[in-house]
């Protein structure tokens, strides 16, 4: 029997500590849409998405109202377009992105992911076309998100693609310069990308997934911070226990929403992504949890250890609360989307090098970091190569989503708006060049899986 105190605690978690379900994402296979004629293919894509996701937003809103739990985003992910569109006789997939954008607007979701290519070992015909189409596709659409997986622990790193993605990020920034290079906020470069991630901008419907599937991404950094506020001075055993218990509760809410969404939509449940996803709102920050543990400002020595404990405890607590866990599952550290991170960058306590160290123990990578617009493509490729190497060697997902804002310099601040937040320009140590390293191309071989020192 639930007690009055239980009811008050849960409602306080929702109203005071910003507990929410971050996203319900429907994954849709587009493998049956193939057609040599690009126009016909685009029509097939539009029809498939609008039919499959017709009731997604309405269902999400109904669940939100009935249970009184905010569900912030309803989204769609699709089969990587480089695979789905490979049969098209064309040299550009921009029309496909436009069809996805139109379909997303029709069904009312706020992002659609899957303008993607999986090239960890090499490029197929469609992969080349897709990667060349990314800058224009992101400039001419509003809701389409793009991702490229260019490395994995099993295959190594495709350094030709690393070189190209530096250029693609720069071109995307240039084509969306009047929106502070917003296109780059919708482009993620991955190593070890999961095919069941419900979070944008990196979501796509993996090739091993069912026809359609609903997955849920939970959130709740504010709830974890609030729980730790009651544990001042407690040792780390107690800190970890507190985070586990809180993550359990958060995930149970996600599981309830996922089960209901799956039942009402008649679509199989995929996974729960156990992620602490921050927002720029005060009280919804991962950095502030680290600070609650005793780090004066995020980025000071001890930050990586604090994040490692947090990430691990969230997974341990969440695992038992859900029947299927997947996706990225961990703590996100997107700089512009986290009020505490923004503050730490502004005060100089958090640098890109410390963020890189933090990505070794958290769930994704260098995320939503605005850098100077004149950063060279080779330097960006170098950043991508470093992150991919961390993911490859440590058998984890890593990613890069940096935004070289044209005309912006260290000391400036850029606004992306809404949940994408705002960010001071983060200094990059680029007085020395990476050009000759990036120019080599080829593949970094897959790593040894034993003798792991």
């Amino acid at each position: 029997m639930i007690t009055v105190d239980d009811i008050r605690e849960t409602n306080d978690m929702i109203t005071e500590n910003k507990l929410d379900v971050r996203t319900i994402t429907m994954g849709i296979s587009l493998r049956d849409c193939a057609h040599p004629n690009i126009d016909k293919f685009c029509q097939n894509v539009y029809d498939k998405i609008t039919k499959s996701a017709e009731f997604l937003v309405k269902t999400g809103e109904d669940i939100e109202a009935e249970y009184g739990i905010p569900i912030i985003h309803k989204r769609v992910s699709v089969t990587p377009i480089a695979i789905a569109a490979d049969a098209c006789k064309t040299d550009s997939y921009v029309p496909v992105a436009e069809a996805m954008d139109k379909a997303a607007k029709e069904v009312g979701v706020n992002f659609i992911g899957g303008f993607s290519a999986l090239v960890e070992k090499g490029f197929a015909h469609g992969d080349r076309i897709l990667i060349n189409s990314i800058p224009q596709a992101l400039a001419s659409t509003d809701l389409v998100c793009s991702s490229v997986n260019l490395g994995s622990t099993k295959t190594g790193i495709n350094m030709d693609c690393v070189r190209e993605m530096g250029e693609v990020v720069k071109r995307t920034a240039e084509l969306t310069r009047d929106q502070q290079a917003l296109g780059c906020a919708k482009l993620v470069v991955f190593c070890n990308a999961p095919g069941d991630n419900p979070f944008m901008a990196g979501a796509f419907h993996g090739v091993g997934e069912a026809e359609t599937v609903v997955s849920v991404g939970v959130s709740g950094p504010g709830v974890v911070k609030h729980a730790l506020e009651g544990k001042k001075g407690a040792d780390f055993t107690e800190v970890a226990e507190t985070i586990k218990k809180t993550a359990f509760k958060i995930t149970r809410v996600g599981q309830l929403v996922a089960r209901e969404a799956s039942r009402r939509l008649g679509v199989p449940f995929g996974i729960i992504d156990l992620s602490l996803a921050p927002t720029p709102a005060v009280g919804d920050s991962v950095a502030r949890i680290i600070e609650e543990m005793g780090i004066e400002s995020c980025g000071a020595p001890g930050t990586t250890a604090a994040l490692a404990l947090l990430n691990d405890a969230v997974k341990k607590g969440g695992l038992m609360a859900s029947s299927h866990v997947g996706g990225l599952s961990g703590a996100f550290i997107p700089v512009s989307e986290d009020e505490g991170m923004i503050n730490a960058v502004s005060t100089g306590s958090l640098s890109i090098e410390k963020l890189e160290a933090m990505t070794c123990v958290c769930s994704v990578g260098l995320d939503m970091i605005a850098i100077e617009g004149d950063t060279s493509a080779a330097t960006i490729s170098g950043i991508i190569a470093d992150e991919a190497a961390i993911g490859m060697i440590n058998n984890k997902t890593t990613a890069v989503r940096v935004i070289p804002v044209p005309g912006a310099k260290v000391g400036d601040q850029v606004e992306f708006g809404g949940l994408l937040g705002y960010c001071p320009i983060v200094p990059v140590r680029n007085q020395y060049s990476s050009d000759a390293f990036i120019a080599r191309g080829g593949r970094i071989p897959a790593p040894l899986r034993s003798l792991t020192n």
Partner: protein
Amino acid sequence: MKLVVTVVGKDRVGIIAMVSQILADNDVNILSINQNIMDGFFNMVLIAEADGSKVKLVDLQKTLKERGQEINVDIKAQHEDIFNVTHNI
């Protein structure tokens, strides 16, 4: 389906009467009420059974919300499962 109705706001005459009347009008049966006044603030948690009711939960929520606003109290009605999952295994 069981509902959890929570009411918070400045105390005044007739809050319980109003909430219970709305529930009765919609064939929702009250199972338990826990209510107190703290520093002049009215605080109530009510658990009710809605199986015999034909009203849609979203419509009932809307009625409660609107009528609550008229007398300056915040009224929430939620499916009880949100509390079960966070407090029971």
